[in-house]
């Protein structure tokens, strides 16, 4: 027990468990379906942000292809869980061996995550030795490749058209549980032996090499975990929205996720979670303002794009004043631990 309390992760994980439960209680207290919808998607975004932090935060490499892995998870789990009848209707040219498969959606989501991790393991191994601009550009190119394949491969993905007919199984509870598991994985990885070595390669790759850190394999391991969580998040999202198109996994969404973890602070798991909460709540709030203004009598013209403009301006101001994000180096658990020690001493 004492060992557990002294653990670096204990306070942070407990903090987020409490936070998630508070959000859950507030939701059941409010009892509105719109609110529940927003909170459920928020939990999916937390999984995405924590997943991206595992690779991007610990290795320091900007990773554009991430949302592409989310799309692989969404499409593959949707394909597995879609009822056989719907398949004949949505995907007429589907390969025969896939036509008769229809499994339990939650198992499909997990298989989707594993499948995404395998794809990521194959695709990214050769890219892991690149750094600086070359690494950024290859991951951007990888996003384009994945997007182009999803748009082009009509037999499996219904091409650029909407992919629909996925059963709606993601509930608030399910998203919250997965989200909490993602948070635990994030903290454990960051403070594990491998996470520490990976952070060493981020801060100085030559010095880390000299003490025996194998940069390529460390990054590869992190990117596989990242992709797994992206796949899970994609699956959950797909089974909540139930219909989507390749446009849902492209540049705009990529930058939404990246801005979440940069605004929160990409070096800390705490930062990525709070970044996800802030950016997503801001995004939804502005959407709501847009809608209210549209139906008010004062403004006669339409206000498409206001959300994006305001969010982008806030983001620029934020990055100028706080380029390392809200939680630059210290996790929330460390702060709590210090406070507790202080109080117990007095």
């Amino acid at each position, binding site marked *: 027990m004492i060992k557990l309390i002294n653990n670096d992760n204990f306070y942070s994980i407990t903090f987020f468990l409490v936070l998630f439960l508070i959000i859950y209680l507030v939701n059941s207290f409010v009892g509105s379906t719109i609110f529940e919808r927003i909170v459920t998607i928020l939990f999916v975004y937390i999984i995405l942000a924590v997943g991206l932090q595992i690779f991007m935060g610990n290795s320091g490499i*900007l990773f554009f292809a991430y949302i592409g892995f989310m799309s692989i998870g969404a499409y593959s789990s949707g394909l597995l869980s879609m009822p056989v009848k719907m398949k004949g209707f949505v995907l007429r040219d589907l390969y025969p061996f896939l036509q008769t498969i229809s499994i339990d959606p939650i198992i499909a989501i997990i298989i989707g995550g594993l499948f995404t991790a395998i794809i990521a393991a194959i695709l990214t191994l*050769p*890219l892991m030795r*690149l*750094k*600086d*601009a*070359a690494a*950024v*550009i*290859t991951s*951007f*190119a*990888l996003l*384009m*490749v994945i*997007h*182009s*394949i999803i*748009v*082009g491969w009509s037999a499996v993905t219904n091409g650029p058209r909407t992919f629909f007919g996925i059963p709606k199984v993601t509930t608030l509870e399910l998203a919250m549980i997965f989200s909490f598991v993602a948070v635990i994985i994030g903290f454990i990885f960051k403070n594990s032996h491998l996470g520490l070595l990976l952070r060493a390669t981020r801060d100085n790759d030559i010095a880390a090499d000299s003490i025996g850190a194998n940069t390529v394999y460390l990054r590869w391991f992190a990117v596989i975990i990242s992709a797994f969580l992206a796949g899970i998040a994609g699956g959950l999202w797909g089974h909540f929205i139930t219909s989507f198109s390749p446009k849902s996994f492209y*540049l*705009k969404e990529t*930058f939404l996720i*990246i*801005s979440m973890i*940069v605004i929160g602070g*990409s070096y800390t798991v705490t930062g990525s979670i709070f970044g996800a909460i802030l950016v997503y709540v801001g995004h939804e709030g502005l959407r709501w303002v847009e809608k209210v203004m549209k139906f008010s009598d004062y403004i006669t013209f339409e*206000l*498409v*794009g*206001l959300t*994006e*403009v305001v*969010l*982008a*301006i806030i*983001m*620029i101001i934020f*990055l*100028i004043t706080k*380029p*390392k994000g809200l939680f630059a180096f210290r996790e929330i658990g460390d702060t709590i631990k210090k406070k507790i020690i202080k109080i117990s001493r007095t």
Partner: protein
Amino acid sequence: MILQFIFDVLSLGSLYALFALGLVLIFGILKLVNFAYGELVLVFGYSMFLLGDTPVPWFFMTLIAILMSVLISISTDYIAFRPVREKSITAVLITSFAFATILQNAALLLISPRPKNVPMPSFFSDSIQFLGVITPVRNIISIIVTFICLFIFYQFMKRSHIGLAMRAAATNFNMTRMLGIPANLVITSAFAISGLLAGIGATLWMSKLANVFPGIGLEPLLIAFIATVIGGMRSVQGAVFGGFILAFIDIGFNYLLPQDILKFRDAFTFTFVILILLIRPQGLIGGPATGIRT
């Protein structure tokens, strides 16, 4: 047939080369991709559209629109790059993308999500016969304009002080600063020239499309981006060469590939980009290794 092919590659390649040149100038010095680069085409297009109803002659309209894209390019530097440049690479990429988002959505919010016509003189789309090949006049214009631009640009980089400073900054930025070259001046003038090249490229691009819409910037950005990587991301010659190679690949695919594989053209092109960075990071024609911040 072969002459037609060569002609197509030359006219498209010259346009691609212009776009790539504007991007590589910034990349060479800062080692950062300017994600707002494509929006310069958008700025040009909407300036033309807004001027379209006024009695201003077409030539001056174009000049004003090019000037607008130069101004926006310089403000990209002031708003998105300068404040965060020293602090974090990731931050700059996001601010430049945020700036692009602002421009796109401003067009959406203030003008319209629907495509708008851009005035173009009618002789651009007339066809003429040249060496037995029938081609629109705009193709010949783009080849001529590009070669004039390249010549002027080359002389400028070679002979002027600021050109020399830019070449030095692209080789080793910190060393250049230590020798007393003002960094901000070099960077701002690189952005200005980048905007000028994008504006001229946009004129030629618009002569083909003849309309403008909020998402117009993506394709020029991707073209410039791929061409720059093929050329090695540092040298100006490389970017021009990359532009022509990309046009060759694009048109070659159009001629050779059947329709249902053509859908995956982007996947092939970007796989090619990844392979170049893995196998020959210095680009196809060599030069110093790329992507390391000095």
